[in-house]
């Protein structure tokens, strides 16, 4: 498995580097899925009806990744914040379950 520097750092942070490459990859993919899904939901929420219609038309044209990316950057001013909010939410959730002692 070839890891990007980000993925490698994430593995270390979560103390996963001793796991098998398959498990590591599986966990990373799950986390990337979460980021993708959460960001997408937020991006959609940020689009008004006309923008959404335009977005729909773009998708009807079998748009490339670059085109979709360009559209979002142009029409969704807070697109970066959507990503940031998603990562923050993921971070908070991971933190809540990396603590070992918890009795209420």
């Amino acid at each position: 498995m070839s890891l990007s520097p980000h993925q490698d750092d994430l593995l270390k942070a979560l103390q996963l580097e001793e796991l098998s490459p398959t498990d590591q990859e599986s966990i990373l993919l799950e986390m990337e899925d979460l980021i993708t899904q959460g960001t997408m939901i937020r991006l959609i929420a940020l689009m008004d009806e006309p923008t959404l219609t335009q977005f729909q038309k773009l998708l009807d044209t079998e748009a490339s990744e670059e085109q979709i990316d360009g559209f979002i950057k142009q029409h969704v001013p807070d697109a970066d914040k959507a990503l940031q909010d998603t990562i923050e939410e993921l971070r908070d959730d991971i933190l809540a379950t990396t603590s070992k002692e918890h009795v209420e």
Partner: protein
Amino acid sequence: MAFSFDKLPQNSAPKDEQRRMKTDAFHEKQKEEKLSETQEEDTARLEKIKLDREAELFNTVSPTMERVLASGKAGPESRARFETLMARAKLMFGDNPEASTPTARAEAWRKENAELGKSDKQIQSLRRAERMQDERWAYKNFENKYLEAYAAHLKVNPFERSRRELFKTKESVELNKLKDEYYAARLNFLRQFEDKKSVEIEEKQEQVYALLREARMKNESISDVEIEDLRTRLEQEFGLPEARQKVKGEVAMERVLLTKNFLEQNNKARAERFSYVQKLGFGKLASTLNRLGSNIQGLMDKVPLKIGPRVGKVLRSVLIASAIVGGTTATTAGSLPVTGVLIALISAKSLAMGVASAAVGEGAGAGYKKFIGQEAQQDAQKKISNYGDLESWTPNDLSKKDKEYKKLESRASEDTLDRKTAWVTSGVTIAAGFLGGRILSSSALENLAPVKELVALVGGGEAEALIEHATSVAGSAEHAAGVVDDAKDAHEHLSTAVHHIANATEAEKSHHYYEGSEHPADIDAREDMLQADITT
């Protein structure tokens, strides 16, 4: 024209089979969870689980608490906590003090099952399975309650844009409380999950210990080194390293799947606010969301991330220490360690701040909720010793750390229980200060180039802001005074290190540093280089 998610291009990278199976199995397990049919059942089962948890806690802390109470040094908060536990124990076991312990309760349970012909091993296994099942039920219960409340909240707050904004509103206090309860339940479940999965390891470990005891009995002259060597070889033969790795992997995977499930449910609640998503169903959305994954990764790739192996190792140590701390307080203050890691996805600056803030914030949050009296001291020492594992500690560092331990112990032994907790917190903060300084110092000695950047990142107002944050978190508790004082000490320590390193960097840059030269500038430069190391 209605928007359709299924028009999004399909993901060209299908999930791998193993991953899909794991996810599917998890969701099947989720579906099988049966929650109570009535509110009364719900309340009764939660109460039972709570009693089990408190019994465990009681079992852990009661010997220390009894000693402290007898000494008359317990603070009001600690005394109240202990008295609550005692009242609970009384509720559970009646007035019979002999039976008022979890051990006695476990023994009664064991006898009950033994009468049914079950072996000790079967009984222990049953007990573990029951606890895990209870905790799974508890977290699902709170998850449902939270998600229901969250969906209701979104309906009356349609313009909510982020979770942070959401939690600013007054009416969200109850929702936040529910979420805390959910996380507490999830943590307890994971703890039981790990416990149950560790059975095989414990059995093998016990076999190893039995053989070691036998070896020592047969050969009294065997040295500790030889025993240690034998232990390592036996553990290898019994496959313990692999077994530990397997458990670690299973726990990590379960944790991630729980995160995934919960955030998916959150996303679903958000998505359901939009009529077009409701019409299409969430399944179609989920099937197409991966499409933009590479774009998001692309965004991340564009952000510089400067993290070396040393910083990575430090971060890991911080996280391990954070895991030891635990608890709600640590969840609040200790959010900083993970900030240091995940925000690194966004910027190198945040990473450097994350390291510093992790150290200081963790110090402020540590100890307050969980650690009491002598146990607190022991845990703090264990925690701080994790930092000592860093390869870069010099004899000077160790000497300084040792002095801090002694100072901590001395103060703690003279002080009240609550103040002890404050000193534990402070001690961790001081250690964190060392840690932060050490990062800078190590970088200075190995490579002067990044030092200036690091100094700029953690210097001045930002470092001050981090200290303020740490103290404000601790300030909510009655231990604030001790934490503030020592956090300031740690900050001063760090600032001094930064100052010396900055001077050393400047000296190097200006070629003022010559070995053996008696020129005042060279002497100053050498002094700064020396101090940069000693101070940290």
